[in-house]
C-alpha cells in the first residue's frame, strides 16, 4: 500500500494577536510560529499507521518555500519514507485550484494506492485541494474521513456528517481521502527524531520543471481578482467586562444571579 500525503505549513494563530499589512493583502507573519497544518498531521499519522499494518511506502509532498522543509522533516520523523517539495515560486497568490494543479503535476507520476490530505487548512480554510486533486487524477474520493478499513483492492471509510452521525462508503483503490481531525492520535516527534531523518534527501521541483504555465497558477491562474483582509469587529455584540479580575468575577456572578443562573 503506497501512500502519498500532501501537507502544508501554516502559521500558528490560536494564541496570536494577528496584524495585517498596510495593503490589506496579508497577515504579518514575522512574529508567528509555523507548524504542520493540524489536519495534515492526522493525515500523516494515518498514512504511517496504514503502512505499519499493510507495508508499503509513504511519500509526503508540500508546496512552499525552503522553510517548509520543516514540515517534511516532521513527517519523515513520524515514519514517512520520501519527501518532495514543490518550490512556491510562481505559485504566489494561487487559489486552491492553482495549488491543486501544482500538487497534481508532482504526484501523478508517483505510484500510489492512496492519496491523503487534511480536510482543510487552518489558514485559508478552502477545504478544496484534496478533492480537486482527486478530480484531476480521475479517482474515487471521500472527504471528512474519520475511519479507514483497508480491503482487497477496495477501501471502506467512515465520513463524519452533521449531528454526530457518520456514513460508511466503499470505493476501489486508488482513492483520495481528506482526513478529519480526531481520526487517530498523531505521534509526538522529538528533536532527536528529526535529527535521525536529517540525511534523507528531499526531492525538489518547481512550476517550470512540472511544466506549468503562468496562466495556470499564481495570480493569473486564480479565479480571485482581489482579496482585502480586515480584523473582524471585536466585541461588537458583547459588553466586555472590565476591571480587576476580582471585580470582573463579581460582576459576572451578579449577572449570572440576575439572569436566573443560580437556583
Amino acid at each position, binding site marked *: 500500500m503506497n501512500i502519498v500525503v500532501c501537507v502544508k505549513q501554516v*502559521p500558528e*494563530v*490560536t494564541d496570536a494577536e*494577528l496584524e*495585517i499589512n498596510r495593503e490589506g493583502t496579508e*497577515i504579518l507573519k514575522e512574529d508567528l510560529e509555523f507548524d504542520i497544518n493540524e489536519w495534515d498531521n492526522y493525515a500523516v499519522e494515518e498514512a504511517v499507521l496504514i503502512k505499519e499494518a499493510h507495508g508499503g511506502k509513504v511519500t509526503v509532498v508540500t508546496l512552499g518555500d525552503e522553510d517548509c522543509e520543516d514540515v517534511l522533516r516532521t513527517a519523515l520523523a513520524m515514519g514517512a519514507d520520501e519527501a518532495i517539495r514543490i518550490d512556491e515560486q510562481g505559485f504566489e497568490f494561487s487559489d*486552491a*485550484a492553482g495549488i*491543486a494543479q501544482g500538487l497534481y503535476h508532482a504526484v501523478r507520476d508517483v505510484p500510489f494506492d492512496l492519496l491523503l490530505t487534511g*480536510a482543510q487548512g*487552518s*489558514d*485559508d*480554510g*478552502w*477545504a*478544496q*485541494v*484534496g*478533492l*480537486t486533486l*482527486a*478530480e*484531476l487524477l*480521475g*479517482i*474515487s*474520493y*471521500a*472527504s*471528512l474521513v474519520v475511519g479507514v478499513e483497508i480491503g482487497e483492492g477496495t477501501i*471502506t471509510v467512515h*465520513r*463524519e*456528517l*452533521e449531528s454526530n*452521525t457518520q*456514513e*460508511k*462508503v*466503499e*470505493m*476501489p483503490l486508488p482513492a483520495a481521502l481528506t482526513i478529519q481531525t480526531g481520526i487517530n492520535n498523531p505521534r509526538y516527534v522529538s528533536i532527536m527524531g528529526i535529527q535521525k531523518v536529517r540525511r534523507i534527501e528531499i526531492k525538489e521541483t518547481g512550476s517550470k520543471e512540472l511544466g506549468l504555465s503562468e496562466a495556470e497558477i499564481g495570480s493569473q491562474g*486564480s*479565479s*480571485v*481578482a*482581489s*482579496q*482585502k*483582509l*480586515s*480584523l*473582524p469587529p471585536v466585541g461588537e455584540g458583547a459588553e466586555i467586562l472590565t476591571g480587576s479580575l476580582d471585580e470582573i468575577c463579581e460582576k459576572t456572578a451578579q449577572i449570572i444571579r440576575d439572569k436566573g443562573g443560580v437556583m
Partner: protein
Amino acid sequence: MDEILVLAEHRQGELRDITFEMLFAANTLGKENGLATAGLLLGHETSGLAGKLKGACDRVLVIEDPELAHYNADQYLMALETAVKDRKPLLTLIGHTAMGMDLAPAMAARLCLPLVTDCVELSLEEGRLGVLRQIYGGKINAQLVMKPSDHYLISLRTGAFDAEVEQGKSGDVETIPAPAWTNLRGRQFAGADILVSIGRGIGKPENIPLAQKFADAIGATLSCSRPVADEEWLPKSRQVGTSGKTVRPKVYIALGISGAYQHQAGMKNADTIIAVNKDPMAPIFAIAHYGIVEDLLQVLPVLTEHLATK
C-alpha cells in the same frame, strides 16, 4: 433571466436548514439583481420535498432516480453536472456541509468553474461576484472580488444566513431527466451500522415506504435481497448477497427475506440478526438470532410505533 441555482440538501426525508439559508441568500441577491431562484432537488420520491421548496423559489428543478436515494458523490456529481449544463445559471449555491464539502471542489474541477467555499456574505456588482470569508479560524475577515465569469460555484457556511426564508412564491416543478449512469468511479454507500433489508415478502413497491419509515425511525439504511433489486424496486447498489454487497452491521433486520445461501453469504456475520417472515421454515431463521413468524406488513407499523414512543 439569469438564474441562481440552489442545491437543496436533505437527509432522511427532511430538508435541512442550510437549504433555506441558501434560498434566503439567493432570493435576497436575486431581488437586488433581477435573478430568478431555482431550487434543485436530487433524490428519489421527492414530491413531498418539492412541495416544501415551492414557496421559497421561482422554480423547483427535480432529478428523480433510485440511484439518488442516498447521497453519493459519484451520482450526485453527475446529476448536478446535468442540471448545471441544462440551466447555465450565473451562480450555483451549495452548502458548506459534509455533503457540499464532498461535492463542490470536484464539481468545480470537472466543469472548470471558479469556486469560493465557506462564504458568509455575497454581493454582485456589475456581474462580478464579491464574497466575505473568514480565515485563520475566524480571526481575519477576507473580502474577495472574483474575476468575471459566466458561472460561479459558491458554498455557504451554515448559519450565516437566515433560515426563515420568506414564503409566498409558487415555483413550478420541472423535471430534468436523470443522466445515464456511465463512467461511475465505484464509490458506494457501504451501509450503516443498522440495516433494514427487504425481500420478496414486501410484496409490492407501494409497501416500501412502510419499511423506509421504519428504517428512518431507527436511523437505519434500507437494503434488499436480490428479487427486490431485480424488480428495480430498489437500486442494485442496495443489494446484499453474493452478487451484491457483503455487510457486517451491528444489527441486520431481514424483512420478508427467505434467506437463500447467496443472501446469507452477504450478511451472516452481522452482530445481531432479526428476521421477520411468514414462513416458519424460511432458512433465514437458521442463522438469525431472533425470529418473528408474522407478516411483515402487520409487524412494521406496530414496531415503528413502539420505537417512536420509547
